[in-house]
């Protein structure tokens, strides 16, 4: 490897090479190659069933890939439980259905992992947790339980919860698709400021094309378990090279 290649390699925080995944007989990922640089914001879109959610879930081992390799920040994802723990501690994840812990308050949801995994003191974790709640704009909801919050507020708590572990990478798995329309923008605003102000590496599976146009460095189109097309938003929106990309975009943009 030349020095130049090593330099480029150091900047590449996620490298996926020829990733395959089957659910039983169903071949859902059919050789995904994707490299993400530190600080990059990548938006993944595609029809449902195209494997986009499955792919980002393989990045922190919520799904196991069966062929190919995934390297996160220099650590290869293998069955070694220590590797998985190390990689998960660098990746925050936000889910479509929030998955907040219903028996804990908003603040407790945020402080649980820092206190248990990182052994932070309660006081330390609470201070950091309140800062995060301020950052997502709902410090006054700290002592409410998830069921007492609106969908948009719950998703913002979920983002704060993921950020509390100081991850290098954030994965968003359709973060707005379970939300009522009027709450989508409050969540997108938080994600946008996260990308702009902190330079966080982000991979978002989303169909919010306005968000993609404004924030994404690169857009990746998934179809039937393969990456069909990728490129900067401008190119994807204005001059997509693949017929399937054009067709999909015409279906979701009116």
């Amino acid at each position, binding site marked *: 490897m030349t020095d130049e290649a090593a330099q480029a390699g150091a900047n590449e925080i996620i490298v996926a090479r020829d990733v395959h995944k089957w659910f039983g007989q169903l071949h859902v990922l059919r050789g995904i190659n994707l490299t993400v640089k530190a600080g990059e914001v990548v938006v993944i879109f595609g029809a449902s069933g195209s494997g986009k959610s499955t792919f980002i879930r393989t990045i*922190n*081992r*919520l799904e196991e890939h069966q062929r190919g390799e995934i390297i996160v920040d220099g650590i290869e994802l293998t069955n070694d439980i220590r590797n998985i*723990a190390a990689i*998960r*501690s660098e*990746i*925050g*994840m936000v*889910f479509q*259905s929030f*998955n*907040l*812990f*219903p*028996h804990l*308050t908003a603040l407790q949801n945020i402080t*649980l*992992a820092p206190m*248990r*995994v990182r052994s932070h003191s309660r006081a330390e974790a609470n201070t950091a947790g309140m800062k995060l709640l301020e950052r997502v704009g709902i410090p006054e909801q700290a002592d*409410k*339980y*998830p*069921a*007492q919050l609106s969908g948009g507020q719950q998703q913002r708590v979920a983002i704060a*919860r*993921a950020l509390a*572990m100081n991850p290098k990478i954030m994965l968003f798995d359709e973060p707005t698709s379970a939300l009522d329309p009027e709450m989508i923008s409050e969540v997108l605003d938080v994600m946008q400021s996260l990308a702009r102000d902190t330079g966080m590496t982000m991979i978002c599976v989303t169909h919010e094309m306005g968000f993609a146009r404004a924030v994404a460095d690169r857009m990746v189109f998934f179809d039937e378990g393969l990456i069909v097309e990728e490129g900067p938003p401008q190119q994807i929106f204005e001059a997509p090279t693949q017929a399937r990309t054009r067709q999909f975009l015409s279906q979701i943009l009116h």
Partner: protein
Amino acid sequence: MPPPITVVGPLAWLRQNLFSGWGNGLTTVLVGAALVWLLLQIGQWAVTEARWSVITNNLRLFLIGQFPADQAWRVWLNLAIISVLGGLSAGVYGQSTRALAITLAACQLILAALILASPLGIVPALALAFNAALVLVAFVVGLRGLVPRRPIAIGWLLSLPISFLLLSGMAGTPLPSISTNAWGGLLLTVLIATVGILLSFPLGVLLALGRRSQLPAVRILSTGYIELIRGVPLVTILFMADIILPLFLPGEWRLDRVARAMGGVTLFSAAYVAENVRGGLQAIPTGQIEASQALGLSTTQMNIHVVLPQALRSVIPANVGLFISLLKDTTLVTIIGLAELLGIGRAVLAQPESFGAYLEVYVFVAGVFFVLCYAMSQASYRLERALGVGTR
């Protein structure tokens, strides 16, 4: 526009629900008359015919069995320790343990009243009334925040061994040794039930987790244990614990008979707790597990902080039902020669002076069981409500 008026007075309620027509009115009158007649009959028996002296004269037997009368203070002292702990917990931990404190105080007050009506004298009654007051005092102390949480938790952990030491004593100390053969009556019933509940719960939780474990050996052992125990009646297990267990143990290992009964009840109940808890575990959405994993929690941390708090909360009603039947099932230990409440009742009936007083004895025993079970059920409702904050 104001909402329609839906609240009605008692008269209107009567009219609507009991006398809405000729037929309904007639039914109400007839059923009402029958109920009144029945209550009068029972009341008349209870007041004029029943020989309650059979109960009051034997109250010590009913309460503590053959436990030496001059050592009975050890039981009251033991209750005092539990009262203080219960009161403190109610003050410090709040709603979830308050029901326990109320139950403790109420039951001891009822006992004190019973003792006052018996030849046992005023001292034990005063001791129990004092204990009830202790609950209140400890509650206030706890509420003021004068006691930190950790000593209370340690106190509860130590309370079981301390109770045993206090009750059984040790030869050569100021607490003379009392054989567990002398333990009996309500004391034995409550002890077996308490130990059974306290030990079978954690054991059952472990078995439930074991049954869902990724490790085949753990899974097969847990499943095998649960299925085996659930396939056998409690009586059989008690016999096994009493007769067969000593055959396998070396001769010098003489496991106490009461301990064997407690072990049998615990092992039996654990299998049922495990199945209840497994139901709760299955109800946890996979999203909760994925979120925990994504945050980097280990499996143990996830179980302790995310899965079990939700799963156990949802199975409170089922588990309390189980524990209520465990309490009643302790009557089966009579079969291996232990004199718990019902056993004492039959012993009392065998005395010539209580000849024929079946109804009095069985009504009393049933009443005591009812009070205990009702208290448990009320405590569980309160616990559910206290823990239900914000879920759903």
